[in-house]
Every structure is written in structure tokens, then in C-alpha cells.
């Protein structure tokens, strides 16, 4: 018990201290090393935490203010892993940007400090037991990324960051309204105290909450947190923010921040299901997810900017996960969790690759990027493998999770198969239409040789491959526990 506590405190404090420390370090080389060091410490902490939780089951920490179960400890590990590889990638990447885009040193200091603060916000959001603090943590992570998106201070990046700020602000305001409504009904049971916002207590007494208020609250939470997940039609901020920010930021936005918002929504769905006893919340999620998937698959075809194109692919996959959790059977949840993992790994890997490709070709415009495989075989293969993986080719993990999802859908909502498959196919066609000429073809003359740091990319793809071929026993067990938990089974 105390072992878990120590791991937990260590994991949570590491990015916070890291962020505060990095705010004072001027030399970019040193701060990128420190950034990696703290991310590494966070990962070690979260691995220790994961093992402890798996052995001892879920429990509350620090007087019930935090809680840990199979669902969130798995996301904590994923978050700290991706943030470690991102920090490894961002070292040389940001040095290149620093030299070629004349970013002032002070801007890099902001970048490193905000990166760690973002990770802190993420971890706080995952572990807190208080739905109000969950909101605060998500807002904190958002504010950190707003500053990161506008890091280059180009006209386009400022406009993108402003749009992100405004839309996210509006979404998060609706989410707060939803949270207030939940407090409105729960305070009649628990009285005016923190208990009425404590997730574990709410979950235990979900059937006593007023169904009507909870449904209304869920509508606000769906639109509010849905904005942050990037679900259509509230997705307008997402492509701009991905395209204009530095690439490591695009990677953590797609790979991590969207997960936190979806995590929050699923937690609330568990409460609402308990209160209403109907599948209404799930159906709303399915509708939003399906709509996002279709919109994203179509919009993907109209893009010129490579990062925008892949950000639409993120919307598509977040839509798919929302559908999975909306269906809500243990098998669908299992598929959703697996998809969350592989999408985070593959998509951040793709963004790393794309960042290098854009540096080598001097542009993010897809018509300017040609002949990667001859010019930079590592980058070219990376982009090709990554696209194959995200499009759902076997033997990668995305294929496995989509296969599982379709099996789950056939059990409960067979009619959904047709629109979902069509959407996936349209997106697939869009991806390859653009990626094929970028990978093959003749490299333009203005292309420059860069030192690409492809190690994180290959680690990500190898893990996605491993998850597709054979999910290791303990991990499968872990997913299974979390999937049952989300499906409304007893907390472990």
C-alpha cells in the first residue's frame, strides 16, 4: 500500500518539478537533456505504479483525493511513455528549428517548461478522484498547449492558437456547466462537500442520482469534452492547432490530450449509465463518433498540409473510439482501449516522421514533399509503415483493435458496420492517395540532408506491431479488467 503511494507521489511530482526547473534553464541543449531526464523519471514512476496497482487492485490515495484503477493506470503508463519518446524526439528536432527558424532561446525555455506542465496536467487529470479537479487539470493541459501551438509566433500560428483557445474555452465552459449540474443532483445525497464530486462515491451511488439531471448534464459534457476530443462538428480547432504548432506538440496533442478528454467522457458515461439505467448516453456517443468519422474521412481528401491531413486522421480514429465506448460491451471497450493505445503510439510516430520530412523538404505542403524513400530512406519507410499501420493493415495493432470492434458491433448494432467500414475505406483511400507520391517519386532539388532521429518512431511502430501480433498476457489481462470496469462491472 505504501509502495503504491510512493510511486504515485513520485510520478505526479516529477513533471511538476521538471516544469518549474526548466522554466529557469537557459541553455537549450541542457534543458532538452533535463526534459528527457524528467520524462524518464515519470515513466519509471508510472511503471512502478502500474505493477503495484495490478498486484494490489484499485485503491484510493491521499485521503481519497486520488484514485487508481486498471483504467487510469494504463493511460498513465501510456502517457508517460509517449511523453518520454516525444522528449527524446524533440531534442534534435527543436535544435534544428532553433537554428533554422531563429527561435529565441527564451522560446525554447517556454517550450520545455510547458511540455512538462502539460504532462503534469495530464497525469493529474487521469488520477484525480474529483470531477471538478478533472476539469481543472484538463484546462491546465489545454492552456499549456495553447502556448505551445503559438510557439513560432507566425501569423498563422497565432491565429490557430487563438481559434484553439476560443473553441476549447467554449467547450470547457459547457463541460463545467455539466459538472455543476452533476453537483446539483449529487449534493442532495452527499451534502455540500467534496464528497458530492468524488467519482468513486458517485459511482457507488449512481442509481440514486436523478436520471433527468444526469442526462442533461451528459448532453453538456458530451459537447464540452467532445470539443476537446475533436469530435465533429466541434473539431474546427484541431487541424489548425496540429498544423501550426511544433511537431512534438502535434504528436502529444493527437497522442495524449485527446485521450484525456475521451477518458473524462467515458468516466461520465459510466455515471450516467448507472443513473438512467438506459443506453441513451452510449447512443449519443455512437452518433457523435460516427459523424466525426465520416466528416474526417471526407475532409482528409481536401487537404494540402501534411500535418492537417494526419490530424483529420486523428479525428477519424477518435470518432471510432467514441463509437467503441458508446457501444459499451466489454468486448467493445477492450477494442476501444486497445485502439487508444495503438493510435497513440502510431499517430505520434507518424507525426515524428512527418516533422522530419517537413524539415528535409523545407515545407509542410504535400505537393512539395516528394521522393522521401530515395532521399531519406529512413523517413520514407517510416512514413510508409506508419500510414499502413494507421490505415489498419494487418499485422499492426490497429487492425486487431478494429477487428475486435467490428466483432463487438456485429453482436449489438449490426447496421453500424456498413457506415463505419465505408468511412474507414474512404479515409484509407485518402491517406494513400497523398502518401504514395510523397514516399516515391522524385525528390525536389531544394531538399536538404538532415540528421533524422528515427529511434522513437521505430520503437512506437514495433510496439504497435507487437500489440497486433500477440498482446502479452499481463497486458491483455489488464485491458480486460479495465474493459469490464468501464462496462459497469464492479470496481476491482
Amino acid at each position, binding site marked *: 500500500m505504501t509502495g503504491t503511494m510512493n510511486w504515485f507521489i513520485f510520478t505526479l511530482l516529477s513533471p511538476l518539478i521538471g516544469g518549474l526547473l526548466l522554466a529557469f534553464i537557459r541553455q537549450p541543449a541542457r534543458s532538452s537533456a533535463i526534459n528527457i531526464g524528467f520524462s524518464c523519471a515519470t515513466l519509471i514512476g508510472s511503471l512502478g505504479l502500474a505493477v503495484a496497482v495490478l498486484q494490489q487492485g484499485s485503491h484510493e490515495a491521499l485521503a481519497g483525493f486520488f484514485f487508481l484503477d486498471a483504467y487510469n493506470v494504463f493511460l498513465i503508463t501510456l502517457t508517460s511513455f509517449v511523453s518520454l519518446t516525444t522528449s527524446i524526439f524533440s531534442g534534435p528536432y527543436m535544435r534544428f528549428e532553433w537554428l533554422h527558424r531563429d527561435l529565441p532561446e527564451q522560446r525554447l525555455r517556454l517550450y520545455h517548461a510547458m511540455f512538462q506542465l502539460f504532462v503534469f496536467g495530464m497525469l493529474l487529470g487521469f488520477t484525480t478522484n*474529483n470531477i*471538478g*479537479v478533472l*476539469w*481543472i487539470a484538463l*484546462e*491546465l493541459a489545454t*492552456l499549456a498547449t*495553447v*502556448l505551445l501551438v*503559438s510557439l513560432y*509566433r*507566425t*501569423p*498563422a500560428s*497565432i*491565429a*490557430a*492558437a*487563438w481559434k484553439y*483557445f*476560443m473553441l476549447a*474555452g*467554449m467547450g470547457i*465552459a459547457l463541460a*463545467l*456547466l455539466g459538472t*455543476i*449540474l452533476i*453537483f*446539483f*443532483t449529487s*449534493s*442532495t445525497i452527499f451534502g*455540500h*462537500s*467534496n464528497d*458530492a*464530486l468524488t467519482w468513486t462515491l458517485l459511482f457507488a451511488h449512481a442509481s440514486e442520482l*436523478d436520471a*433527468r*439531471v444526469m442526462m*442533461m448534464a451528459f448532453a453538456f459534457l458530451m459537447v464540452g469534452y467532445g470539443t476537446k476530443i475533436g469530435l465533429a462538428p466541434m473539431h474546427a480547432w484541431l487541424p489548425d492547432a496540429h498544423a501550426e504548432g511544433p511537431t512534438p506538440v502535434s504528436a502529444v496533442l493527437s497522442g495524449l490530450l485527446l485521450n484525456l478528454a475521451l477518458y473524462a467522457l467515458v468516466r461520465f458515461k459510466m455515471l450516467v449509465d448507472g443513473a438512467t439505467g438506459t443506453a441513451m448516453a452510449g447512443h449519443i456517443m455512437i452518433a457523435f463518433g460516427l459523424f466525426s468519422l465520416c466528416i474526417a474521412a471526407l475532409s482528409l481528401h481536401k487537404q494540402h498540409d501534411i500535418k492537417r491531413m494526419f490530424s483529420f486522421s486523428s479525428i477519424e480514429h477518435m470518432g471510432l473510439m467514441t463509437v467503441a465506448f458508446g457501444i459499451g460491451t466489454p468486448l467493445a471497450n477492450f477494442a476501444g482501449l486497445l485502439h487508444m493505445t495503438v493510435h497513440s503510439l502510431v499517430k505520434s510516430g507518424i507525426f515524428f516522421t512527418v516533422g522530419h520530412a517537413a524539415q528535409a523538404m523545407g515545407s509542410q505542403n504535400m505537393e512539395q514533399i516528394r521522393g522521401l524513400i530515395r532521399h531519406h530512406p529512413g523517413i520514407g519507410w517510416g512514413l510508409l509503415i506508419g500510414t499502413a499501420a494507421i490505415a489498419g493493415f494487418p499485422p499492426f495493432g490497429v487492425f486487431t483493435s478494429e477487428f475486435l470492434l467490428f466483432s463487438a458491433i456485429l453482436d449489438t448494432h449490426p447496421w453500424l458496420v456498413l457506415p463505419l467500414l465505408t468511412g474507414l475505406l474512404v479515409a484509407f483511400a485518402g491517406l494513400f492517395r497523398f502518401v504514395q507520391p510523397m514516399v516515391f517519386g522524385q525528390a525536389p532539388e531544394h531538399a536538404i540532408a538532415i540528421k533524422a532521429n528515427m529511434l522513437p518512431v521505430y520503437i512506437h511502430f514495433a510496439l504497435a506491431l507487437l500489440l497486433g501480433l500477440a498482446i502479452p498476457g499481463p497486458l491483455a489481462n489488464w485491458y480486460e479488467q479495465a474493459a469490464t470496469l468501464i462496462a459497469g462491472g464492479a470496481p476491482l
Partner: protein
Amino acid sequence: MGDVMLQEAISVAASLMLLISFALLAQHRLLSVLHWFAAQGVVLALTTLLVAVISGHNELYFSALMTLLLKGALLPWLLWRIIRKMHVHREVEPLVNMPVTMFIALTLVLVCFYVALPIERMSQLVTHNTLAIAMATVFLSMLMMITRKKAITQVIGFLSIENALFFTAIGATHGMPMIVELGVAFDVLIAAIIFGLFFTHMRSTFDSLDLDVIQEKSKR
């Protein structure tokens, strides 16, 4: 007797909030928008004080003081400084013309009453009849935020959404627990600082705080 008086006072405060939301929407001059925004902060602080007296939650006294300082004084003052320093044009240019905006606003209020009335009856709190108005103020502020072109009016819209949400929490539940309220206030403060930073960047990059101009220039 005292309870009835206080309840009446809360209803008056709620009506004032609604009135201010409409006033914010109807203003043409940027400075008057700011004045109404400050007034909203003050009314919010007074409401909090009233609820503190009724409910006997001591933390609400602190909340009221904080609201008065932060939302009634500090934020309006910061915005006023920005407006003066940047010589922003005085006129507010809405995307939708005023009569249409007002009509949408009225419809929103009606919808909120329709949705919130059945729920309001459940509550045992003396403040329960403010829920519909509180929700309406949230949506009116949102309307203001989306129908304005100037970055600075959008920010005032954003902050007044925050005010309206605070008012909802006070009215519907006698305020969120202290820890949440502090966290939210902290986030709003950070957001305000970031807004300030953005204004400086926009000013130096675009020489304008008009979002039409910004969208136009960023496409080049």
C-alpha cells in the same frame, strides 16, 4: 421574515445578472461593454455574499471577496489598460446585427426556462429558482463571444461565461467546494494572462485585434 427578504434579494440579483447579459450584448462601444462586465463582477460578488448569509457556508465569504477583487476590479482594470494602450477602435462590430442578436437571445432565455424549470423544482435550496436564469446567462455570454469580431470583445465574452458559470454554481448548489472554486479561479487567471500575451503578439504581428484581419493575413 428575514428568509423571505433574502430570497427576494437573490431573485433581484438573478434578474440583474440577466439584465447585464442583455446589456453586454447590446453595447456598441467597447468601453461600455467593459463597464457592464465590471458591473457583472460586482453583482456576482454581492450574490455570493447574500448566499453566504443564507446558507451559512463560511467559505463563501472568502469567495465573495475574491470575486469582487478578481472579477469586479482586477480583470476589468487589466482589460481597460489593454484597450487604452492599444488604441483599439471604439466601435464594436457584431457579425449579426443587433435586432437579430436580441431575438436569438430572447429565444435562448425561453429555451433555458423550458429546460430548467422541471429540474429547479427538485431542489430544496432557497436559491433554486435562479437556475433557469443562470443557464440563460451562460448562453447569452456564449452568444456574445461568437458574434463578435474583435479579439478583445471575445475575451470579455469568455470571461463573462466564466462569471455566468460561477453564478450558476452559486445559484444551483450554493457554490462548488472550495478546492474546485480555487482551481477554476486559478485557471481563469492564467487564461487572462495568456490573453494579454496574445494581444501583444497580435498587435505586433498583425497590427490589429480584429479577427477578420487576422484570418486574412494568416492565410498569406
